[in-house]
């Protein structure tokens, strides 16, 4: 009985993802997703993608040097993240996973702050309200419900549908393809649909959830999930920054205007292993990775910029300098990240420390100050 997993059912030929910029850097248009190029700052998109990649590369290096415990690389997903982030207004709230370094960058976070979580000096690292960018969430799918709740708050605050661009607000929730299978994510879709909430779900389908190919989660495109709940889903080339920008803009606009949720599937690829602790060669063929490398999102935009002359050479030289500065900032900043205070877990468990916990803290501090340092026990 040499049966294996059941054969995939016949699925209807799926819509090809919408593309506005092809791998060679040529523009195209698609009636389903119009984009007025006059409203797009190509140079800024390119700059943010390049710097995001540099940030990622540096972080990987820092991990190799033992400065970070772990790093989840976003390489290959720069277009999806930067495209989506450029569609945000200041007041929009973002709920990331743990891989949205590109969005964090565009939100204006100090990039060094991103390293603390992976260095083990903090579990958070930044003020989620200052940048309208929530902390990273490591529990797959959990943040999608927070996004829904925040969106419920927006509705109650009259922060949608007023027509005032500084007032109307939406929520942008990121998730991976694997996250589509968590019950909580699906509850988030259900709530968003039934209450017509101002939330955009941005799914980076990078084809893999650690070692699980997308086919383990589903045999139809992720964007179609939305139809089951009764709200629009759209599938875009996630390595095409313009398609990602256009789709997110439209969806956020609709959300802010009171038009309800959208699910965006950005079809992309996790070029590196899941994290620096993972070994992707154990589960996927090199050929696949190489194949996707040819669709690199950054090269694609650069090709476009160079061939059209949309930016001057200064753009590139200036960018090189910025990249070097960023790398330096990260290297120095990482090592200078403050060591956590041993009292901090106790201080931040409750708004006011309960008496019992205070006693535990007292004992702990005594132990920490006199105990392990001198090798002698008290």
């Amino acid at each position: 009985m040499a049966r294996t997993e059941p054969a995939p059912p016949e699925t209807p030929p799926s819509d090809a993802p919408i593309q506005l910029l092809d791998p060679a850097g040529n523009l195209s248009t698609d009636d389903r997703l119009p984009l007025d190029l006059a409203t797009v700052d190509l140079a800024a998109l390119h700059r943010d993608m390049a710097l995001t990649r540099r940030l990622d590369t540096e972080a990987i290096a820092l991990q190799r040097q033992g400065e970070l415990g772990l790093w989840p690389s976003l390489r290959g997903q720069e277009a999806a993240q930067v495209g989506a982030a450029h569609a945000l207004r200041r007041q929009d709230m973002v709920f990331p996973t743990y891989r949205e370094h590109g969005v964090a960058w565009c939100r204006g976070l100090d990039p060094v702050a991103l390293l603390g979580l992976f260095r083990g000096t903090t579990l958070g690292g930044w003020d989620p309200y200052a940048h309208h960018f929530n902390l990273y969430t490591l529990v797959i799918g959990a943040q999608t419900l927070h996004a829904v709740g925040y969106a419920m708050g927006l509705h109650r605050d009259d922060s949608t549908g007023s027509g005032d661009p500084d007032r109307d607000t939406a929520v942008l929730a990121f998730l991976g393809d694997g996250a589509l299978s968590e019950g909580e994510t699906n509850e988030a879709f259900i709530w968003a649909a039934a209450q017509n909430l101002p939330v955009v779900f941005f799914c980076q389908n990078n084809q893999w959830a650690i070692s699980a190919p997308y086919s383990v989660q589903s045999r139809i495109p992720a964007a179609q999930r939305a139809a089951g709940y009764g709200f629009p889903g759209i599938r875009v080339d996630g390595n095409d920054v313009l398609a990602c920008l256009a789709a997110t803009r439209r969806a956020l606009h609709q959300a802010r205007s009171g038009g309800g949720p959208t699910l965006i599937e950005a079809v992309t690829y996790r070029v590196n292993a899941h994290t620096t602790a993972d070994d992707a060669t154990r589960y996927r063929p090199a050929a696949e990775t190489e194949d996707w490398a040819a669709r690199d999102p950054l090269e694609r935009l650069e090709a476009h910029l160079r061939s059209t002359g949309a930016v001057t050479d200064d753009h590139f030289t200036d960018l090189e300098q910025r990249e070097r500065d960023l790398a330096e900032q990260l290297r120095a900043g990482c090592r200078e990240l403050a060591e956590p205070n041993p009292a901090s877990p106790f201080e931040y468990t409750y708004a006011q420390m309960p008496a019992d916990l205070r006693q535990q803290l007292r004992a702990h501090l005594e132990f920490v100050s006199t105990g392990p340092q001198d090798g002698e026990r008290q």
Partner: protein
Amino acid sequence: MVKALNDGLRQALTDDPKVLLMGEDIGRLGGVFRVTDGLRKEFGDLRVVDTPLGEAGIVGAAIGLAMRGYRPVCELQFDGFVYPAANQIITQLAKLRHRSAGRISLPVVIRIPYGGGIGSIEHHSESPETYFAHTAGLKVVTCSTPHDAFHMIQQAVADDDPVVFLEPKRHYWTKGEVDSALPQPLEQAVIRRQGTDVTLIAYGPTVPVALEAAEAAAEEGRSVEVVDLRSLSPWDITTVRASVHRTGRAVVVHEAAFSHGFGAEVAARLQDEEFHFLEAPVVRVTGYDTPYPPSRLESDWLPGVDRILNAIDRSLSY
């Protein structure tokens, strides 16, 4: 007690426009126990929200609402239906203040009708307090009188930490005076009856049972002090120690299973901190280490007056 909770919630909704209630069947129906009766009519469907059927959704959305400045009071319909929300409660609600180094404050209340004794079917009689009390970052409280219900629910709503608010459903229909002027601090235990021979420690559903047992013991000439813990996390060991210091003996009563029930923690602390004063081991009178039985068996299965009296005897026999 239902009325006191309803009044307390009405007051909370009136006092702070950011307070909102959410849960299954709490609006149109007023809750399966009518705790939220009339509130949707009074405060509108945006503040008293009938949610879809999904407990993870309720707590997860409450977290998001709290991040947007609201103070959500969630109802989980029964003790046995909290588990789909366990992930949001344990990995998110309890930990976000810590994760964010104090930047995120989640003033979320989770109301749960809990405990047995009302002849219900499976999943409607459970006592999950250990799961929550063992989870750092949550507060856990329970009321045993209408007076406490009225005040404690408002204090829970006003608290900046997430509070699991356990409502002993078999006392929902208990009547009692509510003195609206006299709230006790939320985290403080209360001595419900003074005594000198043994300290009986109870909370929520078992407080009236403990008082009844104390009454019966009195007839046999035994003076039993009854402490109502009210708050389970943090818990007021100071009041308990002071009492045990006087009596030298302690009996803990709860409906939750014996092993790893709240009584274990009480016993562990007392044997440590009152080692020289305890004249007898701390005795536990609790549910058994089985799932909650079919309702025809519950009255014997639950800790009742007789079992408590036996325990008092045992304690005094040392």
